[in-house]
């Protein structure tokens, strides 16, 4: 079972190394990790997807909290959060199958961002499952390259369950 951790860290050299080194040292598995600017000027937010049971998750959070460069650790539950990932994928695409591929891309609200002689580059966003599905559908055409950002996520506003279904 995988869990999402939202970790607020100092935006300083080597912080990513500290976090990933700790996860490795404690034998915690990382499925994905993404880092970027947070809402505060000198802080970055890391979104870590990690495997393991509740107890492992608990230990990961506590051990991460011990790092001086870690300001805050929160667990994000899938049911009450918005989870997104960006994928760029280049598929083989002879001119005769382009329309067919377009037909796959549309329902996923993905878009074509580069066209070559024999290939297309697509951009897609969504949760992990959606991107996995799109990848599988494109596989028969020949996948040349894939780059994914790893998951980012934010918790939905608390006590507003009626709103959460809208988006």
């Amino acid at each position: 079972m995988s869990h999402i951790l939202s970790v607020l860290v100092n935006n300083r050299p080597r912080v990513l190394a500290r976090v990933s080194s700790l996860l490795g040292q404690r034998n915690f598995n990382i499925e994905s990790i993404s880092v970027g600017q947070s809402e505060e000027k000198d802080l970055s937010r890391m979104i870590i997807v990690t495997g393991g049971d509740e107890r492992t998750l608990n230990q990961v959070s506590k051990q991460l909290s011990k790092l001086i460069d870690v300001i805050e650790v929160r667990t994000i539950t899938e049911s009450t959060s918005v989870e997104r990932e960006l994928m760029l994928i280049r598929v083989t695409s002879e001119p005769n199958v382009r329309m067919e591929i377009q037909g796959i891309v549309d329902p996923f609200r993905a878009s074509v961002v580069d066209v070559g002689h024999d290939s297309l580059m697509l951009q897609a966003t969504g949760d992990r499952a959606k991107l996995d599905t799109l990848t599988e559908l494109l596989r028969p055409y020949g996948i040349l390259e894939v780059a994914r950002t790893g998951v980012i996520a934010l918790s939905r506003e608390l006590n507003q369950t009626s709103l959460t279904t809208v988006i």
Partner: protein
Amino acid sequence: MAPQLESKTNSIGLDEKKYTGSEILLRSLVEEGVEMIFGYPGGAVLPIYDSLYDGHVRHMLARHEQGAIHAADGYARATGKPGVVMATSGPGATNLVTGIATAMMDSIPMICITGNVPLSLLGTDAFQEADITGITMPITKHNYLVRSIEEIPTIVKEAFTIATTGRPGPVLIDIPKDVSQAMSTFTYPEKVEIRGLFQPEAPTDVQINRLQQVIQQAERPVILAGGGVVRANAQAELIEFAEKSNIPVTTTLMGLGGFPSRNELWLGMPGMHGTYAANHALLECDLLIGIGARFDDRVTMGRIDKFATGAKIIHIDIDPAEIDKNVHTYVPIVGDVKQVLAAANETLSSANSSNWIKQCDDWKAKFPLQYDDSDENGLKPQWVIEHLDETTEGKAIVSTDVGQHQMWVAQYYQFSEPRSLLSSGGLGTMGFGFPAAIGAQFASPDRTVIAVTGDGGFQMTAQELAVVALENIPVKIVIINNQCLGMVRQWQEVFYKERYSEVDLSGSPDFVKLAEAYGVKAWRATNKEEATQAWKEALHHSGPAVVDFWVNPNENVYPMVAPGTGLDEMMMGDEEQ
């Protein structure tokens, strides 16, 4: 006498005088109350050693960086103040690694200062360059690479704050050579705010009430006190807590001295080489109160399924990450052990434990630690330790290396005061004991400091004899000499069908002659009579002394619990194998 720094810096910035980075570093250390640096010079720290030449801070020149850092560690363990060690870049820095890991595992506050190549050469594989911040990331509480001279005061202040706040630990500061050579004004910050530093809060009434409630319901309670009690200077509070609640106490290796061994409620050390009473109390208790202990595998044997199975566990610890790490906790209390115990003591009343105390006393009487003390086939190491205890009334500072002699010290030296046993409990570092004793003696010149070591461990840092000889540091070095690596030999005997692979230390030097070559007085003893005489002379000698006790090499440490078995499967002696 070292000249004093002429003036404190002016906090409103009137002091426009410029200092080098290394002067700023030393001034910052002085601001933190540092009186002693243990170290070894080299190219990248030349500017700092040049500033040291002015004599602001006392420096002990070790003969190996590992000796320097264990000495700083011993100083910290004996005083509770951070130990400060300094080494050059590259090999100087990497030679500190074992000592940093040793301090990290035992939660010892340390400031490790390393030089590095100039900023412009960082990352170019320059001469004596090592990425010491990268290397020490997992074995420091935090570390810094100083990138500009302006950062030095803040980083030093932060480093001391981090090393001593909450659960203590080592902090490393890596200073490129051009940073220590640069010039700037100096202002030392009064305090620093470190957002990511965990500071435990005072215990709440709810927690304290819960603690007392659970104690009242218990019939077979036991306290497991660890190194946290020593680190928190909470011996008095623990004694009051145990006596008021009438709960017996077992102290881990790191907790020895945290509760007086001569107190009636003491059960001895638990675990792999623990006493029958301590281990059976842990097995049969209905309430286990862990205080500053982390339930490691030398206590639980890694068999949580067989450890305190019928007990509710209360866990008092300063580090939230220790709660539920190894055992499931019924009542967790995160906080400073001293503060929590003091709060609990205010209203604590006795548990309903009189029958249980009788049971524990019965175990103590029936299954005491024992050995045959005949010196027919060489001295008994246990007897040597008991003799040290008797002649110093359990009041010396005793450091150890790792292995059989370490366990015998833990079993047979009756520690009465905290910060008296200096031992590498977590990492299990051979070569630790002797340099740690030097550091402790610097900190406590008036106390008897004994380094108990083996013929194996002593050879890992014996070069520091030069330091004790030169500075006339009156450390007493006790070598429990069985001419082999005793604990490894014991395991090979018990678990590897007596296939003694690479444990014979024949070829070791004559330790008496070795000591004398350094100018240190030395004795040898092969029986009780010689031992008594030699130790008497060594103890009363005003300078450093080495006593080489030739002990029976076949002696094993008992009781013993085999790894992977439960505490109920204790081997009490050789005859049981």
